[in-house]
């Protein structure tokens, strides 16, 4: 299990969740394909170029985008650098411990990163100042503050909002000298790739699992859909799915995209 959630869910609760699921119900009364309430907090919480504090039910995440200048990677001299990192803060769960990111945190960051990168949601080509020498580096730092399941989707939503809100200082090269100007430029979002996470409990497929649903689940998967309704990233995690279950998951995710995309657009 990803973060040792097992100890967080009492056996009685586990049986209850499974029993409910078989009868088409969830503990919080939601439908199987229904999200918990999503809220984007107002206010400024960081010194980031763009940020978003997002609540998905009881799950809370804070994402900040910072920009810097640096050298591009040698194999992509004509592209800016985009780096993602996720931190599971010890404040977010009694099972999270301080220290370097574990495999769960690394996978999480990479799943969010992959959705964004696979459709070039950020135009890295527009972040070049001097090809091969000087580019913008965009750092996407994801903080998990309170963990009640489905970090994938909450972090993706918060990341898209934070990126879409980002304004970075304009830079000019004058006789080889870097001049940082007062004016800012927007980091444009060219696409809205959204991750949709599902768990399988018995024979049922549930969208947006809580921590308890995650801990009793037999299998889990995250599917990203972009603005054209295309699958742009998939990550199956524990357990197994049949081909038909996967196809069904993809079409549910596709049908949910407009609803979530409008939340992202509104928040930006």
């Amino acid at each position, binding site marked *: 299990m990803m973060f040792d959630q097992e100890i967080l869910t009492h056996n009685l609760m586990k049986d209850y969740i499974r029993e409910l699921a078989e009868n088409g119900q969830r503990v919080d009364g939601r439908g199987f394909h229904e999200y918990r309430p999503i809220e984007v907090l107002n206010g400024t919480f960081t010194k980031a170029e763009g940020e978003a504090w997002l609540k998905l039910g009881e799950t809370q995440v804070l994402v900040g985008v910072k920009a810097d200048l640096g050298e591009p990677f*040698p*194999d992509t001299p004509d592209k800016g650098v985009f780096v993602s990192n996720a931190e599971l803060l010890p404040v977010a769960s009694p099972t999270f411990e301080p220290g370097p990111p574990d*495999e*769960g945190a*690394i*996978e999480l*960051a*990479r799943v969010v990163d*992959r959705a964004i990168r*696979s*459709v070039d949601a950020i135009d890295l080509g527009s972040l070049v100042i001097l090809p091969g020498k000087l580019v913008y580096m965009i750092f996407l730092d994801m903080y998990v503050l309170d963990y009640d399941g489905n970090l994938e989707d909450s972090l993706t939503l918060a990341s898209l909002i934070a990126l879409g809100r980002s304004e970075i200082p304009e830079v000019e090269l004058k006789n080889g000298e870097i001049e940082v100007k007062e004016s800012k430029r927007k980091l444009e979002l060219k696409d809205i790739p959204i991750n949709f996470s599902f768990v399988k409990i018995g024979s049922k497929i549930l969208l947006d699992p809580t921590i308890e649903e995650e801990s009793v689940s037999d299998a889990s*998967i995250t599917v990203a859909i*972009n603005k*054209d*309704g*295309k*699958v*742009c*990233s*998939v*990550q*199956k*995690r*524990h*357990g*197994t*799915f*049949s*081909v038909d279950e*996967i*196809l069904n998951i*993809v*079409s549910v995710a*596709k049908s949910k995209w407009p609803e979530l995309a409008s939340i992202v657009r509104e928040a930006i």
Partner: protein
Amino acid sequence: MPLYVERKPESLITEEGIRTDGRLPHEMRPIKMMVGVLEKADGSAFVEWGGNRILAAVFGPREVHPKHMVLPDRALVRARYNMAPFSTPERRRPGPDRRSIELSKVIREALKPAIFTENYPGSVIDIFVEVLRSDAGTRVAGINAASLALASAGVAMRGLVSACSVGRVGNFIVVDPNHDEDMWGDSDMPLAMMMESEEITLLQADGTLSEEEFKEALDLGRKAIRFVYEVQKEALKRPYYLVERRVV
């Protein structure tokens, strides 16, 4: 200055569907599998798949270290995917990077559903995947090798796990993407299944696929995996072929 610079071919696929290595969209690269290649490991396998050279070894079920990781009711399964420093054109820094850590996790999750972990309470099954030479599709080749190593170690399994990648290059869904397609293709989708029950144990994707393309990719992947499964079964049985002689 990097010594090795990757060059993108002018075209990845012709209108007739001829790929950069001359294959057709549904054609796989040559595969070679060997079981029991290591002496000290409880189970091992070596897989050659196109230009990939992958070694897998299994230790266990054995005692768990560190002790606090013990699971009282089932076996702990650990997997480590590692790329050798000399496995890529440009030397890799030894040790796990973020990609290797993620791949170790998904490989473990691809194999674990196949293992009867409840048969070995309190023990650990360690799976090691060593990429000696990489040529696109190392994780799926590694899963095939590791699955063979598990079976040859005598670990009780629900079935073999077989794996293959599929991808999209332009309008073509291609099976077993090669290096060029992996680098510059439009989409890449590694897939692993337990073929007997047709359960998917690994599914990742990177790059866009429409719903129809996704369906087609899953279907093509399943067909390819069926083939890989047959090769695996034969590789496992080969050392035990019945020999019969009649004394005249």
